[in-house]
């Protein structure tokens, strides 16, 4: 049994909330720089120039790159030999979110009640996805998620007969309809299989993958590549102004499904694709 103090979790989550909002990770930064070099559309290139300049300002001044600092999504892998001491786990994470969003001057976008409203005042509660795994490590991914790209995400309970062609149609049609709304260049996360809720979670989880990584199964790696081409052929371009760069990556995650079901989901991330990771 390995002990991890709740206060340590709070401290790290607070730091990661701030850092994620101030600094793009290298994979996203590099992909945007590459896109800037390659973009043919003058309007699209100007948008990418502004995005890169913005990234530098946010990083050097330690201010949020986007005013929508998101709901705090936290993925956790906890080893079964880890014992949390000095407080409960969920409170530790939420305290971290509260401290990070307050001390970092990050926007509080959480409404306590979805219909009646009322800002919670500190951007809690976090959306926590918890997995228990063998071992004594505690892994945390802090993924602040903005509303603009989340709103363009979708799920379909397709027929098994729809097959791969159905998936392509679902992805291309929905990205085309979203146009400039989700702040392209986007990262497209696709979940295939599972139940309704597992499918949506797969799409979200795929956004944690590094840009440039490919699916370990060559069949899905090929599908990622094909979808990447189809999406960029739409010509939506940076901020929807037209151009070659609509997506920086397409990531697929899959799970076994029911014989009658063929769930497919798509979770879109904007170019301010924020994610920070730590192992405790």
């Amino acid at each position, binding site marked *: 049994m390995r002990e991890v103090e709740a206060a340590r979790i709070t401290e790290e989550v607070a730091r990661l909330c701030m850092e994620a909002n101030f600094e793009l990770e290298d994979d996203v930064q590099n992909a945007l720089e590459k896109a800037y070099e390659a973009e043919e559309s003058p309007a699209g290139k100007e948008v990418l120039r502004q995005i890169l300049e913005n990234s530098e300002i*946010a990083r050097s001044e330690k*201010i949020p790159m*986007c005013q929508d600092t998101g709901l705090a999504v936290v993925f956790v892998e906890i080893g079964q030999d880890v014992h949390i001491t000095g407080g409960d786990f969920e409170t530790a994470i939420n305290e971290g979110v509260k401290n990070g969003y307050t001390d970092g001057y990050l*926007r509080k976008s959480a409404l306590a009640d979805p219909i009646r409203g009322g800002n919670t005042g500190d951007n809690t509660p976090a959306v926590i996805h918890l997995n228990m795994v063998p071992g004594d490590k505690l892994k945390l991914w802090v993924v602040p998620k903005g509303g603009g790209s989340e709103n363009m995400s979708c799920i379909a309970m397709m027929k098994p007969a729809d097959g791969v062609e159905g998936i392509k149609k679902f992805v291309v049609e929905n990205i085309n309809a979203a146009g*400039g709304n989700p702040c392209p260049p986007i990262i497209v996360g696709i979940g295939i299989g599972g139940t309704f809720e597992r499918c949506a979670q797969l799409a979200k989880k795929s956004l944690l993958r590094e840009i440039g990584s490919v699916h370990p199964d060559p069949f899905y790696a090929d599908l990622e590549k094909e979808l990447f081409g189809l999406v960029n052929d739409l*010509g939506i371009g940076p901020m929807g102004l037209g151009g070659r760069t609509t997506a920086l990556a397409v990531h697929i995650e899959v799970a076994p499904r029911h014989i009658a079901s063929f769930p497919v989901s798509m979770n879109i991330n904007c170019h301010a694709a924020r994610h920070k990771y730590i192992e405790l």
Partner: protein
Amino acid sequence: MADYSMTTPLSDEDVKKLKAGDKVLLSGTIYTARDAAHKRLVDLLDEGKELPIPVDGQVIYYVGPSPTPPGKPIGSAGPTTSYRMDPYAPRLLDEGLKGMIGKGMRSDEVVASMKKNTVVYFAATGGAAALIARSITAAEVVAYEDLGAEAIRKLTIKDFPLIVAQDCGGGNVYKEGQEQYRR
């Protein structure tokens, strides 16, 4: 495609000059409002009451800035997606609003109202919120303080970089730009 520098308030003549794809550096005073503030403004109009901000000739920016850090006039302040304001926008355009700043395409109803009322829709770069904040030299909450980030603020801006996304003649940079690069 032309480059312009303009100062608010905007006249019909200013708006008529602007074509989809033009670049504009906007200066002067603008007001912020997004989902919740728009609902309140339109509710006031429904009740026949006076609005808390001037609208005639003015420009509204769809933004909910992040909190203001010490020593700065405002936090990060990029545009939010405009379609959510589409149900409310035509009412404000009928009151004389001349410009809107946001991101993403507008509805057919808003486009019709923009033609009828001679109004321009500008796009700012979504996610470039730290950069845009440099164009904002002063900010003051003027209504609905209880809404926090969604409160209405009066902003003083200097050379805010914008692109004419949809003009008052039906020109649309999204449609035109995307068609050009579609394969």
